[in-house]
């Protein structure tokens, strides 16, 4: 699915791109609905974690890819979502309402600090979000009366067998993944998304043409926070145990960042492609290269940056015409 072809089709009608993406999304979701019956619990778990990472990466993409604000510390929302949800479950709420206890504080925090931090650009914004994560994580680790502190929070096991639990987690993340695709399409094709892109390419110009930049940025960040927080909540339910160093782990953010860049920044399906590629590579490294997998993964990332500068989608877009011509000539 070459990005350039996609772009060319947009020209043919205002909603062509949207419809196309929606169609691809529907096909994807159909595949995701059928897949579990063919998979062992292990592969189901891998797929679930790919979907989770794709969602987190989409959250990152929403800010960094579409608006151009690298929200490096976005994992803070994952942690808040995980803690909020876990505490609500522990207090007796069902998962559905419990997720709100994670999502609302996360979205609220984004709206509250957005106007302060979103005045910063580039690295400075990235670092500020990182600082935000450190502060919130330290609070979670020290307010032991509320969060259990360093001892973490353990959730009671859900009902049913391991298979049931795996299915529930999968369905939860697949649904959230569908929502993340909708968010991607919204940010790419809506009027609001147009404002986002205007900010990314030139914020002063956007401001001058009447885009309420601060409001657009804050709302985009809130959407990104909501998505990430629900992912955190589902994660807490899935693993059944959280501690601050686990859910406020910067490595989650970094991984999400690598994934959306690898897949293609500012695209709808890029995060999924990136998550698939990175998770596959790590999984392969783990089962076959005991003791060397960090090295392999590190070198893979370096090679990707050197060789695929504009992400997998960009790579395909650049090389597809040549490949197509060759194929045509052969046939």
């Amino acid at each position: 699915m070459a990005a350039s072809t996609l772009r060319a089709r947009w020209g043919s009608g205002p909603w062509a791109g949207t419809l196309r993406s929606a169609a691809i999304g529907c096909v994807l979701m159909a595949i995701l609905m059928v897949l579990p019956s063919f998979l062992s619990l292990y592969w189901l778990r891998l797929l679930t974690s790919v979907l989770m990472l794709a969602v987190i990466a989409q959250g990152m993409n929403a800010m960094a890819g579409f608006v151009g604000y690298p929200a490096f510390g976005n994992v803070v929302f994952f942690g808040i979502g995980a803690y909020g949800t876990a505490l609500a479950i522990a207090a007796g709420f069902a998962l559905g309402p419990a997720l709100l206890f994670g999502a609302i504080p996360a979205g609220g925090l984004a709206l509250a600090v957005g106007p302060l931090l979103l005045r910063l650009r580039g690295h400075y914004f990235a670092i500020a979000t990182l600082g935000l994560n450190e502060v919130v994580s330290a609070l979670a680790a020290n307010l032991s009366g509320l969060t259990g502190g360093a001892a973490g929070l353990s959730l009671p096991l859900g009902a049913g067998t391991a298979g049931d639990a795996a299915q529930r987690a999968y369905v939860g993340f697949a649904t959230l993944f569908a929502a993340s695709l909708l968010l991607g399409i919204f940010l790419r094709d809506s009027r609001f998304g147009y404002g986002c892109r205007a900010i990314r390419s030139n914020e002063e110009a956007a401001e001058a043409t009447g885009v309420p930049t601060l409001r657009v940025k804050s709302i985009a960040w809130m959407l990104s926070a909501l998505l990430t927080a629900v992912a955190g909540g589902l994660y807490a339910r899935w693993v059944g145990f959280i501690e601050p160093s686990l859910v406020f782990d910067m490595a989650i953010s970094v991984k999400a960042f690598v994934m959306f860049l690898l897949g293609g920044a500012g695209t709808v399906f890029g995060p999924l492609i990136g998550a698939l590629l990175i998770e596959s590579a790590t999984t392969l490294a783990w089962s076959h290269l005991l003791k060397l997998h960090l090295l392999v993964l590190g070198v893979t990332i370096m090679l990707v940056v050197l060789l695929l500068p504009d992400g997998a989608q960009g790579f395909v877009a650049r090389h597809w015409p040549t490949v197509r011509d060759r194929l045509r000539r052969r046939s």
Partner: protein
Amino acid sequence: MSSSSRRRLVAGCLSILLGLSTVMPAAAQDMIRFGTALSLTGNLATEGKLVREGYDFFVKTVNERGGMDVAGKKYKVEIVYYDDESNVNTSVKLYEKLISEDKVKFLLGPYGSGITIAVSNLTEQHKLPLVIAHGAASTIYNRGYKYIFGVLNSIDHYTYNMVKMASEQKLTRLALLNENQLFAQLGIDGAARQAKELGVEVVYKEKYSSGTKDLSPELEKMKAAKPDMIIAGGYTNDMILLARQISQVGLKPKLLGYLLGPTLPGFVKSLGADAELTLEPVQWSINVPYKDQIFGWTARGYADAFQKVYGHVPDYHPIQSTAALQVYYNAFQKVGGFDPQKVRDAIAETDIVTAYGPIRFNDKGQNIAKSMSVVQIQDGKPVVVYPADVAETKLKLNP
């Protein structure tokens, strides 16, 4: 990077996407397989190596004797290992792989408390036994799970003997400091409870953030509280800094104990004089008076045989691993087969003596038959000083 290698990279990625990963060879018939994920890389890799040596040593010993003797038949033993990178998500994923792909029925716990809690959620749902050799947090065991069993003393026992020593030595002012992290927090909270129970006053108790580069503010406050015994808990990096700064700020406690540290490689070598006379509770030492009812060796006999294979004297990690496998071995023999549910029930009834110590589980799956000893670094070497029946030498107080 040539275009052909680029193509190879792409081809590699595609083959992964299509799920063309190799599957483990099917188990040979008379082979019993165990499975575990260890920290072979990551920040717990040093301990991970010791843990693995203990498992491997059991496998080697048993296979050299023809295999495990169950219902009159010999079964060779194999362990499937994965590297969890000291990471919770990876660990849970790998245990799912062990269970649903590799079809391993008998699982050994990972290293580290947080990881063990997450992994036990999975194994409990699968209703498969998980024998834990290296997860000490009491929070692992107090969730009412039926399939987890820990051969080691849980964290609330760690400091008990040290606090008891303090009260026997008429040391009445105890200072407690821990890294704000699961294991250390539970351990030091335990010490505070024990101090109350044994009539020792806690004059200072605080936690610090992981990776701190200066502990002098905490230590100055502690100094002002005039403790005559300090117990500290955290990972080795911080403990080395702490040991140095304790002497730099001029704290001179009569006794200085750590939850972990003095017996780990590097601690004594790095600290020299600052490591002298420090205490650490250990799960096991060469002097414990137990004779193994399965292999027939004493603790010292185990250590000698181990050293011949791995070239170093074992600390408590390897034998703890070996003991976990012995729990399974004993259960297999009692059941006379390998049905996981029956094996689970037999494990619950375990009552054996190993070179590691006696093993008997309460209904939470904690080993309640064994106690811990305390070692002290004397002249650069760890020696057991407590309790009296296993002590190699006398406890020395700082002047």
